[in-house]
Each structure stands twice: as C-alpha cells, then as structure tokens.
C-alpha cells in the first residue's frame, strides 16, 4: 500500500505546478463558472456537502465521545450507584475529597506512575535502537518488521495469561532462567517491585515493535544530505545519530511519548489478568493496582459510579497537566536549539 501511495504521490505535486496550457485553463474555468451560475442546486451542493461529509463523524463523536466526557464530570459531583444509575444525589466535591483521603487512590496513582515509567521509558529507548538498526540495509528486513509486530496482534488477554505462566514463582520459565544465572527466584505476582516489573514487561513486549516502526518511518524521512554534510564535518556514526537523527525525530518522539503516556495512564487489562487471586485489587496488597483498575473496582465492584467518575476526571486532569508540560518542554527544546 505504501508502495503505491509513495510512487503515486510525486506526480501529483509535480503535475500540479506546470498546469495545463493557460488557454485551456481559462476556458475550463469559464465553463465551470457558467455551470455554477446556472444551477442553484449545484451551489447548495458545494456549500453544504462538506458538512454532510463530516457530520456523521461528529454526530457519533458527540454521542459517544463528548457527551460521556462531560457527563462523567457531572456524575463525579453526585452520589450514583451502579444498581440505580439514574438516581443521582448532588454531593458537590465530596467524591473528590474522599478520594484524596483514600490511601488506595494514592497507592493506585503511585503504581500507575511507576508502571508507566518502567514500561514507557525502556519501551521507547529500545524502539529507538531497533529502528536505528532496521534503518540499515538488512536482508529479510520485512520479515523482521512483521515479526516484531506480532506482539501487537496479540490481545491483552492472551498476552497477560501467557506472561502469568512465564512469571510463575515455582515453575515459571523466567525464574528458571534466573536460577540458571545464579539469581534467587522472585515472587513475580506478590512482591511489589517484581510484580510491577512483570506487568510492565507485558506492556513493553506488546508495544516496542509498534513504536520501532513509527521511529523507523520518521528516520527514513530524514534527508540524506544532512548525514552527508555531517560526515564531511567529520562526525562519526554516533555523533550523526546524536546531532542529526535525534533532532529530526523530535516531533515523532514527542508524539510517541504523548501516546504512550495516555496508554500508560489507563493500564487496565494487564494488572487485572495478572492477579493470582483473579481479583480487582491488583494483587493481595494492591501492589500493582493501577488507576484504571481502581476505577473499575470502585465502579463495578463497590458499585459507586459517582466515585469512579471522580477517578476518571482526576485521570483526565492529570493527563491535561502532562500534556501542557510536554508542550512547554518541547517548545523550550525547540527554542534552545
């Protein structure tokens, strides 16, 4: 698909500039004007069809995106129970104040942050390295690309269940391999850090290849002249990577950081399915309960939809703050270079 697209694109740009002979163009334009003047229906069509084309998207978006977003905020100011979702009692900020007094909320927030960091940072760094290698001329590069996208095709459910077995304490393959290397077995499901690392591993496994492809695409768009002149200036490959590749990738890196941050803020299926007790608390001592899981526990197990809405909106506000920080940082970076 890329093939056809990329080969088809240049004639578009090239072909538009020289244009047709001017006489033709004028005639065509006159003809067009005449027709336009002739038909009111035509005018109406031109004027309103763009709105007709975009309206299905916006109607659906308002129904399933915007309305729920606002309604969640509204519900977060009420006491609403799952058993009777239509009975709403106004409680003002009480859901929020109770939330902020709740140790499990802060625990979940902290876990979300640590799992987010130990899944996103290695994931993006590894993706960058792999993209760099794939950017060399390699035999069977298509095979490598497809193979590393295989985890992306695997569902959260399937991946989590497999990793539960691989991370098993007594007979899991990872502890077996550690034992081989002379390291004592870890309790991947019950100890805090090992369990968080295990949950993050599932995420890293699923998304590294995908991000590598995104970086690779951006690397291939860097004009080669930049490398040539850097090489002429005596830059070695590492220096070229630092001074040419990385700066050119900055928008793409920002994009992947934002997308991964959003993804990390709502981790849900992995900790849910990784729990040995099949519960919603993220391990017996909440050691890997994320905000997404906590929201589910409050809303669907404890049945407090109002409080769950407050969690959702808090997550949203945190994301907005992260977004603003990202934006400011990237502007700073751009200004300083």
């Amino acid at each position, binding site marked *: 698909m890329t093939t056809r697209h990329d080969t088809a694109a240049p004639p578009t740009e090239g*072909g538009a500039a020289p244009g047709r002979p001017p006489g033709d163009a004028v005639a065509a334009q006159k003809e067009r004007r005449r027709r336009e003047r002739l038909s009111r229906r035509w005018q109406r069509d031109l004027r309103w069809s763009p709105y007709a*084309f975009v309206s299905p998207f916006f109607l659906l978006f308002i129904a399933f995106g915007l*309305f729920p977003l606002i309604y969640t905020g509204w519900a977060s100011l009420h006491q609403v129970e799952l058993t009777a979702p239509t009975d709403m009692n106004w409680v003002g900020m009480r859901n929020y104040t109770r939330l902020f007094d709740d140790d499990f909320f802060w625990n979940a927030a902290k876990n979300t942050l640590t799992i987010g960091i130990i899944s996103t940072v290695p994931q993006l760094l590894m993706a960058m390295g792999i993209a760099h290698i794939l950017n060399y001329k390699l035999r069977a590069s298509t095979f490598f690309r497809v193979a590393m996208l295989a985890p992306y095709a695997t569902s959260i459910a*399937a991946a989590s269940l497999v990793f539960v077995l691989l991370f098993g304490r007594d007979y899991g393959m990872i502890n077996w391999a550690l034992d081989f290397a002379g390291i004592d077995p870890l309790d991947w499901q019950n100890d805090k850090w090992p369990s968080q690392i295990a949950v993050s591993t599932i995420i890293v496994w699923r998304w590294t290849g995908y991000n590598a492809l995104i970086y690779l695409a951006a690397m291939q768009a860097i004009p080669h002249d930049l490398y040539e002149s850097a090489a002429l200036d005596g830059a070695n490959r590492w220096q070229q990577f630092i001074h040419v590749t990385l700066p050119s990738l900055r928008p793409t890196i920002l994009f992947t950081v934002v997308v991964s941050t959003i993804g990390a803020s709502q981790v849900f299926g992995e900790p849910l399915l990784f729990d040995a007790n099949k519960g919603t608390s993220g391990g017996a001592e909440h050691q890997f309960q994320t905000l997404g899981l906590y929201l589910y526990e409050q809303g669907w197990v404890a049945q407090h939809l109002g409080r769950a809405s407050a969690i959702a909106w808090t997550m*949203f506000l945190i994301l907005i703050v992260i977004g603003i920080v990202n934006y400011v940082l990237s502007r700073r970076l751009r200004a300083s270079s």
Partner: protein
Amino acid sequence: MTTTLTPPDAKPPAERARRPRMPKSARAGGQLHGGPIAYAIMIVFTIVSLFPLVWTAIAASRDNQRLAQTPPPFWFGSGLFDKLEIAWKDANLGEAFLNTTIVAGVSAATIVVLSTIAGFAFAKLRFRGRGALMLIVIGTMMVPPQLSVIPLYMMVAKLDWTDQLQAVIFPSLVSAFGVFFMRQYLIQALPDEIIEAARVDGASSWRVVWHVVFPAARPAMAVLGMLTFVQTWNDFMWPFLVLTQMGNPTVQVAVAGLGRGYTPDQSLIMAGALLGTLPLLLVFAIFGKQIVGGIMQGAVKG
C-alpha cells in the same frame, strides 16, 4: 551538493535499493549495510517477540503436571489438538469468534467509510469552520476512552443493551485517528484536477465521492480497515464491562474467562489464548507487509 561520500552499496547494481518501494528510504536509510551485530540484535529481538507466542502453543500441548515441573517444557507434547478442542467448547469460542467478527467487521467497515468521506472533506473541500473542526478531531485523539466508560455504561444499561453486541459496536464506530489518517492520505493521493474534472462534467459531491474519492482512497482504506479490525478484535476493557461472560462474549472476554476458574487449568488457558490470537496472526502473516506500511505511513505524516 557534494558527492564525495560514496555510499558503500553504490558499486553493485544493488537491486534492493532500486525497488520502487519507498524510494526515500532506499536513499536515506538503505545506505549502510548492517553488520553481524545488527543481525544478531534483530534475531534476538525477533526471538523475544515470537517466543511467548510459540510457547503458548507448547504449553497448550502439555498437561498441567508437566507445566508444574522445572525445567519448563521447551518442546511440544502430544495434547495440542485435544486441548484446543476442549478450550473451543469450554469457552464457547465458536460463538465468540462469530461475535467478534461481527463487531470488528461492522466497526471497521463503518470507520473506514465515515473516515474516508470526512477525511476527503477536510483534505479537499473548502468550508467554514474547517480548521476548527479539524483541531477538534485531533484533540479527541487525546481523550482517554476510560473517561467515557461510565456514562456509556449507563446509556447501555438504560437501553437494555447489556450483554448484547450493539453495546460493543456503537461506541467503536468513531475514530478520530481514522479521519486524520484518511485526510493525510487524500491530500497527496487525490489530485485536485481530477475532482475539478469530475465537477466540470457535472458530477455532484456524492458522485465525486463515489466515483473519484473511493477508488483513489482504496489502498489507505484497506490499511485503515485492517488496523481498525485488529484494534477492535483485541479490545478488552469495554467488552469486558458490558458483556458478562454468560451472554455473547467476544473472543477476548471468553479467553479471559478461561483464566478465572477456582482451579485454573493452565494448559487449557493457553489453548484458549492461542485460539484467540491465531486468526490475527494469520492476518498478519498474510498482510503483514501492508500493515507495517500502513503504520509507518500513518506515523510519518503524523
């Protein structure tokens, strides 16, 4: 431009570099040949990527006693097909496959068509509010879906749709990414003259969409369709919330349900996980190249 730097692959005719595929990549990236270290890293990474999938099949082919021993099994036993059959029946996977195919098919088809016409409007038509509306589309890509879960659940409960497929389908009919993706594609792939020519011939906007835009957008529509299908197929949270495991499960809900018994049968779970993943892996084996291209294309222009 100086040409003193001769790329190492300039001497042999280098057929690979001259493939029409991604001409830019051939020039910019394809310059340096990867050495043995590059191959070693890629092979290690490929093994890490594929191993859990292969091991799912290995674990499914062994009985539970063997799985509860060290060292863990590294090669297939004889029980694979029996276990697959039991998992298929236990998790009601036949129905789950049908359900998931319907859900993923309907939402992929709808998203592709709606995204194409909206993307066309944003790419090629002038209208008041275009910039602002496009900003909204891009902005919505940032809104986490979890925010909508609670009201959507209330809506579904009110409509009495719990456990029914339309509860899963309806919220997944919109994709801001899809609109963005098609817009980026059509800006380049659809020459303005063709639209103008069709207009001169008296075609209405709808005819232009049908006879010009759809044919021109077909490659991107295919990629978007596959990406959406994969995403919907793998979606877990929303189906998990609205479909209890009794009625109309999707594949992901059914597979997750296998792991939730009191004494989970590990090898059965692995068989279910394998079955749930297999169809998509097949799709990837066949269309992998196109999907890779689609992801990269969406990324570059993003």
